C-alpha cells in the first residue's frame, strides 16, 4: 500500500504538516495529503473494534462544530471523531442562533473565540467564509464545507477509500460525474486526486461544468459513455432537485437518461470499477439503486466509515502543536 512519499522537503526532519488550519486541499502539498491519509489508517482499525473505541489524546480540549448550513452526516462524523479522541464536543446549529438575528459572521467568530475552543469545525454556505473566520480566531479551524469552494475532509475521505480499495491513487482514471458547477466536493477532489497523480475527468451536461477546468488538469466530458470509458473509479455527485426542473437540466428523467449511472453505462468503465458517492444519494436520478447497494463495486458506506477516521486524524494533527507534542512545537 502506498505510504507517505519520501520527499526532499521532509528529509531534514521538516514538519510533515506545517499548517494552522485545514481550509482546503489547494494549500496542501502531495506529501502532506499522504501524511493525513497515513495518520487516518490507525483510526480505521480502532473504529472497527467491537469493544471500546476510545482514545484520550484530545481530553480536556473543546471542539466546536459551528454549522451555518444544514448537515447530518458531516456534522455527525466530526462529532463522533472528536468524541472518540476524548474531546468535549459542542455543536452549534444555525436555527435560533444569533446568526439568524443579524449578527455579522465576524462577530459570531469573535464570540466563539471568546469561549476558548481548541478547534472549530465550520460549515457555511458562502465560499470563503471559513477562511474569513479562521483569520479571527486563535485555534485551528477545519473547513467542513464552504459554499462551492472546498470540502477538504470529504476529498481526504474519498482518497483514503480509493487507496484502501485500489492500493494506489497515482495512475488511476477517476471520473467525477454530475453537478460539478455547484460542487465543493468536486473542487477539492480535482485538486487532491490530480495532486496524487490520478487522471481526473469531469462528466456533466455543459450547463453544470464550470469554466477553467483545464487549469486543474481535469478533462471535461459531456458524453458520459466517453467519460466513463476505462474508468477505475466513478464518483457520482448529488444533483439538487430544484436544479433539475428546467434551470440547468430539463427534468430528472432526462438527466437520468443521459447522466444516470446504470449497469449499461457502468459497463464502459474498467471491469473492477469502484463506484462512489459522497451522499446523500438521489436513487434513480443520478444512480441506479442496485449499483449503490452492490458492496463489491460500491464504496458508498465505506466512505462514511472512512469519514470518521479521516476527521479523527485531522483533529489530532491540527491540535498537536497546542498539545505540545514533541516535534510539533
Amino acid at each position: 500500500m502506498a505510504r507517505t512519499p519520501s520527499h526532499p522537503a521532509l528529509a531534514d526532519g521538516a514538519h510533515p504538516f506545517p499548517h494552522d488550519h485545514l481550509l482546503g486541499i489547494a494549500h496542501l502539498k502531495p506529501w502532506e495529503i499522504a501524511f493525513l491519509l497515513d495518520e487516518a489508517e490507525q483510526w480505521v482499525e480502532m473504529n472497527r473494534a467491537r469493544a471500546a473505541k476510545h482514545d484520550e489524546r484530545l481530553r480536556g480540549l473543546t471542539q466546536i462544530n459551528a454549522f451555518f448550513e444544514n448537515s447530518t452526516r458531516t456534522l455527525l462524523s466530526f462529532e463522533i471523531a472528536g468524541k472518540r479522541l476524548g474531546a468535549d464536543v459542542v455543536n452549534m446549529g444555525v436555527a435560533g442562533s444569533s446568526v439568524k438575528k443579524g449578527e455579522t459572521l465576524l462577530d459570531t467568530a469573535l464570540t466563539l473565540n471568546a469561549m476558548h475552543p481548541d478547534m472549530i469545525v465550520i460549515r457555511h454556505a458562502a465560499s470563503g467564509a471559513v477562511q474569513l473566520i479562521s483569520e479571527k480566531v486563535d485555534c485551528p479551524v477545519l473547513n467542513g464545507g464552504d459554499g462551492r469552494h472546498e470540502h477538504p475532509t470529504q476529498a481526504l475521505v474519498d482518497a483514503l477509500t480509493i487507496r484502501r480499495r485500489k492500493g494506489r491513487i497515482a495512475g488511476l482514471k477517476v471520473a467525477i460525474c454530475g453537478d460539478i458547477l455547484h460542487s465543493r466536493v468536486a473542487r477539492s477532489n480535482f485538486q487532491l486526486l490530480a495532486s496524487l497523480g490520478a487522471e481526473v475527468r469531469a462528466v456533466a451536461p455543459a450547463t453544470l461544468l464550470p469554466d477553467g477546468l483545464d487549469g486543474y488538469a481535469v478533462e471535461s466530458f459531456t458524453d458520459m459513455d466517453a467519460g466513463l470509458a476505462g474508468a477505475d473509479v466513478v464518483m457520482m455527485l448529488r444533483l439538487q432537485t430544484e436544479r433539475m426542473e428546467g434551470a440547468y437540466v430539463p427534468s430528472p428523467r432526462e438527466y437520468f437518461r443521459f447522466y444516470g449511472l446504470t449497469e449499461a453505462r457502468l459497463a464502459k468503465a474498467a471491469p473492477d470499477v469502484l463506484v462512489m458517492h459522497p451522499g446523500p444519494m438521489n436513487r434513480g436520478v443520478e444512480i441506479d439503486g442496485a449499483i449503490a447497494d452492490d458492496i463489491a463495486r460500491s464504496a458508498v458506506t465505506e466512505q462514511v466509515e472512512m469519514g470518521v477516521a479521516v476527521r479523527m486524524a485531522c483533529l489530532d494533527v491540527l491540535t498537536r502543536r497546542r498539545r505540545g507534542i514533541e516535534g510539533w512545537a
Partner: protein
Amino acid sequence: MNGPIALTGGRIICPATGHDGIATILLKDRKVAGIGPVEPPSDATVIDASGLVVAPGIIDAGVFKADTAAANAGGITRMVLMPDQSPPLDEPALVAYAQGSGKPDVWVHPLAAATRGLKGEELAEIGLAKAAGAVGVATGRHAIANARVMHRLLAYAHGHGLTVVSHAEDSALTAGAVATAGEYATRLGLAAAPAFAEALAISRDCRLAEATGAALHIRQVTTAEGLAAIAAAQARGVNVTAGITPAHLYLNDMAVSGFRSFARLSPPLRDERDRLAAIEGVRAGIITILSSGHDPQSQEDKRQPFADARAGMAGAETLLALGLGLVRDGVIDLPRLVAMLSLNPARRFGLIAGTLQLGAPADLMVFDEAAPWRIDGRKFHGAGNTPFDGVPTAGIVRMTIKGGDVVWRV
C-alpha cells in the same frame, strides 16, 4: 474669499487651450485671470510651483459618494455623482439637494436616475431633473434589463439633451454573479458570469443609441470584446464614449484570490487578456474618460464572505497617482491623462470647467508627478477599502484649488 493667487514656476498643462509649459497662472475673483509671463498684482499670494505640474482640477465622472475630504486630497474639484443614493436621485428635489451637497469644497454634478427607484421599469422625471441641475441620467449600478425601456430612455433623454450613462452588464447573465467566469472563479467557488456579458450589453445599447441619436456613455468598459463593440459603434458615428477606472487597468481576476473582498468590484475584475486590452483601449483613444469609481464601503460591508461583501472601492485619493502609471508606462502622455481626468468629462457632461482658459473657473490641482508613496487605506480621508492597499506608486497632489480657494495643501 481669498485674494488673488499667482502660481509661479509650474508646468501648466491645459488640453483645452493646448498650453503645456512653464508659466505663471493668476487666479482672481474665482476665475483664471491670466496665464503666461504675467506679473502678479501686489495683493496676490504668490505660490511657488517650481517642479510641479499645474492642471485643471479633476472632474471625477461617476462617483457613488460625494466625499469632499477624499476628493480634495485627490485633486478632484468636481464630482459627477451617480444616482445610486439613499434614496435614489429620481426626484427633482433630490437632484437639487445633491447638487449643493459638496459646496464649497467640491461641486457635485448629479446624474439623475434614469428610471423610478432605479428599477429599470418606468422613466423618471429626467426633464425636471435637468432643470434641477442634473447633468445627465444614469441607469445606476445595473443595466436596464428591458430593451424597450432602454430604447425609450435613450430617445427621451436625447430630446432633453442629456447624456445617458449606462452600466454594461447583461442583467440576466450576471444575476447573482460576483466574479468573471474563468479558472480563478471556479477555484474559489464563486458564482461567475461570462466576460462577454459586457459586450452583449454594449452592443445593444450602442445600437439603441444609434437608432435614437442619443449620447451614450459607458462608464466602465473592461473587456476586449466590449472595447471592440465600442470602437465599431464609434466608427459608425454613434455618439458613444467609454470610461474606465484604474482597477480594471491595473488588476486582474487573480486579485480576488484569497477571497479579498476589497477586490469585489462591479463589473468584476477580468482576466489578464482583458486587462491588457483595456490599456490598449486607452492608448487607442477608445476610452477617453478615467474616473475613480469612488464607492467607499464600511468595514461591516466589506469584512464579509466574498459574495456577501458589497462591491466597490474607495478611489478618489488614488486616481491621479494610478493614472500617472499610464504616463510612466508610456501608454499616453501627460496632457492626454489630464484631458481624460478633466476636459473630456467636462465636455461629455456639458460642464464649463476642465480648462484654464481666461475666465474659466479657478479649479486647479498642483501635483508632483514623481513623488513616491505607498497606498495605505488606513490613511484615507474616509473609508479605506482599496484593492491597491500596500501598492507603491508615485504622484502626490500638493494643492487643490476650488473656485480660487485653496482647499488642500501638503
